[in-house]
């Protein structure tokens, strides 16, 4: 079977229209979880089926697609999804954030500032921010409807009571345009400020849970907190060991059995770009930079 046996971007046009309607509704009501008829995709739930369906519904033949997983373009999940769309839609792909028109992401927002005209598609495992404290879907819907969000702060209260500070490090809840409380997907809370006032369209797809929600460009997004425990976008207190960046989100990499470790940018495209521009971190090789520059 060849890729041409599939419709453009795998899904049939009726399905894409259904998803687009959900997306439009999501854009019209920022932060509201729109139910949609999630399809079986040729990959297991938990591998980004929600994001893939949203991407498929947004793609045009002229688009340039970038796919990242935890900031990296070269991990299994990112590679598989990129290949999937290369085969089923034959679109151009890139690893450069600035060149992409659609970026599908799992658990990160790229370091490079996004621009108008770009679409960022998030893969979402559990769209309901209230779920861990209130298991009843009927009740959580009612709470969103009536803006009863005290429970969200109970979660943060519990964090402080137990750890002395808000220990929620990812999927940190936000309030959208002063109305809906939203789960930003499991991005590190370091990325939370980037959600707000972003020039790009941000779309969130949860395949298993059959929900789509959205942030239109320049939406006001506020991370929940307490007056005496304000929100902080934290990261590891290091610079990148490869490119020396002090302001990017870092992954910790264990390098040997004797406690050796290094911190590197989780956004591989951002790191590579800095190295190419001549920035060198603690463990960065100057010749590598040379090579990249040539």
């Amino acid at each position, binding site marked *: 079977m060849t890729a041409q046996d599939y419709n453009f971007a795998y899904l049939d046009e009726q399905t894409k229209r259904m998803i687009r309607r959900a997306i439009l509704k999501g854009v019209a009501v920022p932060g509201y979880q729109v139910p949609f008829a999630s399809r079986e995709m040729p990959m297991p739930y938990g591998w980004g089926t929600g994001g893939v369906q949203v991407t498929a519904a947004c793609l045009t033949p002229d688009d340039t697609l970038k796919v990242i997983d935890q900031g990296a373009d070269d991990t299994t999940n990112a590679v598989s999804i990129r290949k999937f769309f290369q085969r089923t839609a034959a679109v151009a792909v890139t690893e450069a954030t600035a060149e992409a028109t659609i970026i599908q992401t799992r658990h990160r927002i790229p370091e490079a500032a996004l621009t108008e005209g770009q679409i960022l598609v998030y893969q979402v495992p559990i769209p309901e921010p209230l779920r861990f*404290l209130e298991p009843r879907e009927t009740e959580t819907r009612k709470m969103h*409807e*009536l803006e*009863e969000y*005290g*429970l969200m*702060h*109970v979660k943060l*209260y*519990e964090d*402080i*009571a*137990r750890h002395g500070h808000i220990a929620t490090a990812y999927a940190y809840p936000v309030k959208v345009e002063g109305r809906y409380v939203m789960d930003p997907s499991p991005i590190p809370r370091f990325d939370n400020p980037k959600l707000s006032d972003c020039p790009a369209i941000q779309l969130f797809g949860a395949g298993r849970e059959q929900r789509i929600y959205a942030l239109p460009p320049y939406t006001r997004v506020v991370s929940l*907190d*307490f*007056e*005496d*425990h304000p929100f902080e976008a934290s990261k590891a207190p290091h610079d990148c060991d490869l490119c020396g960046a002090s302001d990017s989100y870092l992954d910790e990499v264990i390098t040997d059995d004797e406690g050796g470790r290094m911190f590197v940018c989780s956004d591989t495209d951002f790191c590579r770009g800095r190295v190419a521009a001549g920035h060198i971190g603690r463990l960065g090789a100057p010749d590598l930079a040379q090579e990249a520059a040539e």
Partner: protein
Amino acid sequence: MTAFDRKLPSPDRPLFQVQGLSKYYGSRIGCADVSFDLYPGEVLGIVGESGSGKSTLLSCLAGHMAPDTGRVIFDTAEGPRDTVTMGEAERRRLARTDWAYVHQNPRDGLRMGVSAGGNVGERLMAVGARHYGNIRDKANDWLGRVEIAADRIDDRPRAFSGGMQQRLQIARNLVTGPRLVFMDEPTGGLDVSVQARLLDLLRGLVREMGLSAIIVTHDLAVVRLLADRLMVMKGGHVVEQGLTDQVLDDPQHAYTQLLVSSVLQV
């Protein structure tokens, strides 16, 4: 005497008025044509055996269930309002500010996975409290008032005894200073000695906070000690109501006479 009159709730205007309230389950009667007024500071007991309609009535009063007919009027800050016809958002806001509901089983009224402090703080956060230190201070104060040691504030209710769970539920409900408390068998399932302590606690809180309360129970000893007024239900109907000790000491209706004479004397 007049020196302390100002501290007492004004008894001249009903806090809560129930008029012609009925609820049917198909052709079966849940409760039928119930009417009463409750004044500020009053505690009303509702007694009857299982199936008498007292729980259905309480559910309708507290807005957990929609009655088929009748009005349930609460004296809100903006004046008397029918809570049956008001919007759900407003009714639920009432339920977490001016009203409180104490369940028979504390598991139904507590978040078992959340610490004692978080349980007490939830209603505060629900009405907009956003200062962790203040919320915690208030939770601490309330745990003290219901006699739960301060060092248990970060423990989850799972680790508490039944009596402690019930006291925690009461603290969680009263922290926002409600004016009307619904209680469904609040001392049911507790040891007799634990019941006594809880009764004393409730009496003190009712007195200090000027609370009005509606207590559903099948325990006549509990209503004698806690309720000013009593309503006796049978088959969905109110068969008798009046001053608690009058209904218990000089019951007029055949069913009440039977109920009172059936109690074991200790």
